[in-house]
């Protein structure tokens, strides 16, 4: 059986078809954000290239965010439609978990970070010594300076000597993090810096084994931020 994994929460759009121990097909693009045009054709190609039909699929998987509001909704709406038509369950995985899963069985502390614009990052930290990442901090949207402080605190608390930064948030604030994390920072190669649908599929198998599944009705996006209008209303600004 296979999992069909779909991610369009950031500038990356990716689709993967993976068995428990085998990636069968993966399409990945990190270019313009024209996800609504390219995502479903990608799914179609991945299914066709793998000669896969729906009866071979055990579950669907989707990144729930954080990420671009519109991008993550395109992925989620797509998976909701597929799920409703096929009756397949959905493994809903945070984009930061998927990013963190690019580093496996390392003693280094992994910080997953997405550029949230407005001088902020979506951020969390992970222990990746086991096969699957374990989240050490609640996900949040915060200034890179706060993320930097929290990483340093975790280094102090856990005695880790190495930090790996993943995601386009780390790229955007590269100079800043190089400055403050100095000798702890381990550079990695670009192919692990962005969310990968194959990593999403791997986490989805874990969710499937644990029975942590959603369906078309229940799956929900994670925004980590109010809409601008709600934020203003809350602050009493008009």
């Amino acid at each position: 059986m296979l999992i069909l994994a779909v991610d369009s929460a950031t500038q990356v759009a990716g689709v993967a078809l993976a068995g428990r121990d085998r990636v069968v097909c993966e399409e990945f693009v990190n270019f313009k954000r024209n996800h609504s045009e390219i995502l479903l054709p990608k799914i179609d190609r991945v299914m066709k290239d793998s000669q896969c039909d729906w009866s071979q699929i055990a579950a669907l998987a989707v990144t729930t965010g954080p990420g671009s509001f519109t991008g993550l909704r395109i992925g989620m709406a797509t998976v909701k439609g597929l799920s409703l038509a096929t009756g397949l369950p959905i493994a809903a995985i945070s984009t930061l978990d998927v990013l963190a899963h690019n580093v496996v069985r390392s003693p280094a502390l992994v910080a997953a970070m997405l550029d949230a614009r407005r001088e902020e990052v979506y951020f969390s930290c992970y222990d990746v010594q086991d096969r699957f990442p374990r989240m050490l901090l609640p996900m949040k949207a915060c200034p890179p300076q706060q993320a930097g402080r929290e990483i340093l605190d975790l280094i102090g608390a856990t005695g880790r000597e190495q930090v790996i930064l993943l995601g386009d948030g780390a790229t955007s604030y590269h100079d800043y993090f190089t400055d403050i994390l100095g000798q702890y920072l381990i550079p990695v190669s670009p192919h692990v810096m962005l969310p990968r649908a194959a990593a999403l599929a791997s986490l989805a198998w874990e969710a499937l084994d644990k029975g942590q599944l959603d369906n078309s009705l229940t799956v929900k996006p994670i925004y980590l931020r109010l809409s601008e209008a709600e934020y203003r209303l809350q602050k009493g600004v008009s």
Partner: protein
Amino acid sequence: MNDINILGIETSCDETAAAIVKNGQEILSNIVQSQISLHQKFGGVVPEVASRKHIETITAVTQEAFARAALTYQDIDAVAVTHRPGLIGALLVGLSFAKSLAYALGKPIIAVNHLHGHIYANFLENPGIAFPCVCLVVSGGHTSLLYMPSHHEYHLIGETRDDAAGEAFDKVARFLGLAYPGGPSVEKAALQGQPGLYKLPRIFLDRDDFEFSFSGLKTAVMNLWRKLEKSGEADVNNMAAEFQAALVEVLAEKTLHAAKKFQVKTVLLAGGVAANSLLRSTIAEKAQVQGMQVFYPSLSLCTDNAAMIAGRAYVQYMRRDFAGLDLNAYPGLLSL
């Protein structure tokens, strides 16, 4: 020939809607989840808030459409979806959902222009409407006049240069302290008041074209209201009545003028503002004098719904006018 059942999905603004229509005529189900209460506290539709609500409710609304129609997913012949115009983030929720649903069911996708949907609402209830027609589409997002020689041809002959008519209703309602949405609340207040006691301009009425402008009317309301408040004569109901009369007069005159110029015998009204009873009766009276027939959808089909999308899609289905998996959404009215 077999019956053709089409599922329609509509998320272009603040209604999450799904409907199933048989043969472009028979509404088997028509589910509309309105977000009005959600946007009320902002005084208008907030795009990001709308998109968030759409993704939350799209599945339930679609399931409900199938349940009410007593059909299974395989019983439909195509999935139709609004792909323009509208709020881009909102459109993309319905579009992405509809495309993947159709794909996994192995059914064709039909891309429907929201305005064509509004106009088609008339054909849902009156299949025998004779072409050519002139159509006035008036809503919170649009004020457009179209010349329609057949089911497949739409020529835009004029539209608003600034605010849409529904937008003008909303803005004036907000200014006068009336509830959102402004269309129904202004109409209700106007019933208690009298037009003509205050004098508002009929903008562009004297010009020989089909363009509209409502932002000047809105400003005139504000200026006059402030004066009246100073002299202690301000009456909300009379102001609502005069505003509605001014707006309706312009819409009606331009529409009838277009009908005469294009020598049509049929006038169609469509869109949320077509629910306004003064607009309906004014155009109907004027058209009767000219020997023209006027159609407007029943109230529930005037405002945004997916039955009009599924209905319109039937015309496209018969011509095998299907979209690809790469179908995208667009905010603008392009390619009428």
